[in-house]
């Protein structure tokens, strides 16, 4: 079953290096005790995933990933870390039974997913992919997906107004 007949190409080497970076960043993020280290390690994982997007010929998504995940979400999390206190971190009593059960569950899920991926029949050669994908994304967004695009912009506006209102109200009542 496990016949890894991989031809060593430049693409595969790049994929291997980037995926190792992504997995190492994620594992370190789970293992660090300080929250700031976790946030920076997750940012490293996000940058590696952006590299994988470039490898998959999705340059626009890669730049959106760098702008939004690395630039916005990680910085937002670092601001969240700054505005809350983390004195007792790393000193809390562990929950060995709970952690072990969670680890077993995650490994079981990965086993099922890996079994499914190994047994699936994917087409060997794919049709040629679109060349200028940023232009194609723009065309699709403003023709076929125009209504979902507008809806998601409304959702984003509502969510940000809601976030500001949530974080502001307590301050007014305490003054």
């Amino acid at each position: 079953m496990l016949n890894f007949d991989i031809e060593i190409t430049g693409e595969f080497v790049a994929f291997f290096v980037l995926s190792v970076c992504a997995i190492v960043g994620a594992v370190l993020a789970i293992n660090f005790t300080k929250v700031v280290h976790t946030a920076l390690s997750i940012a490293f994982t996000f940058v590696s995933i952006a590299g994988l997007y470039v490898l998959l010929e999705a340059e626009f998504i890669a730049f959106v990933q760098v702008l939004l995940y690395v630039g916005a979400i990680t910085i937002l999390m670092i601001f969240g870390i700054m505005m809350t206190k983390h004195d007792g971190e790393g000193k809390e009593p562990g929950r060995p039974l709970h952690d072990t059960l969670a680890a077993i569950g995650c490994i079981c899920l990965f086993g099922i997913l890996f079994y499914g991926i190994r047994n699936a029949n994917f087409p060997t050669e794919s049709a040629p992919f679109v060349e200028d994908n940023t232009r194609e994304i723009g065309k699709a967004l403003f023709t076929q997906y125009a209504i979902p695009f507008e809806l998601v912009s409304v959702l984003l506006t509502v969510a940000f107004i809601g976030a500001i209102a949530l974080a502001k109200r307590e301050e007014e009542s305490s003054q």
Partner: protein
Amino acid sequence: MSMLSSYLTLAAVLFCIGLFGVLTKRNAIIVLLSIELMLNAVNLNLIAFSKYGVNPSIAGHIFSLFTITVAAAEAAVGIAVLIVLYRSRATVNVDEFDELRR
């Protein structure tokens, strides 16, 4: 083993690491970051299928753009809720927010 299987396996690994972080970590900020990691794994699947799938098209890119937008909204609202909770309870540990259970 084709490139598609490699990408799907990598996404499964990242998803399981994120799930483990969500289930075991107590700090709410780490839980939010783990959720972002899981969403990123799903995005990687969408982009991989968009290139190597049965019918390669741009739709996977569009879907992942929508996922990224919703993830940004989720992170913003999550951090706002977390700051309000921190003001009232002076903690960010998720297992101490248990008023509904008591």
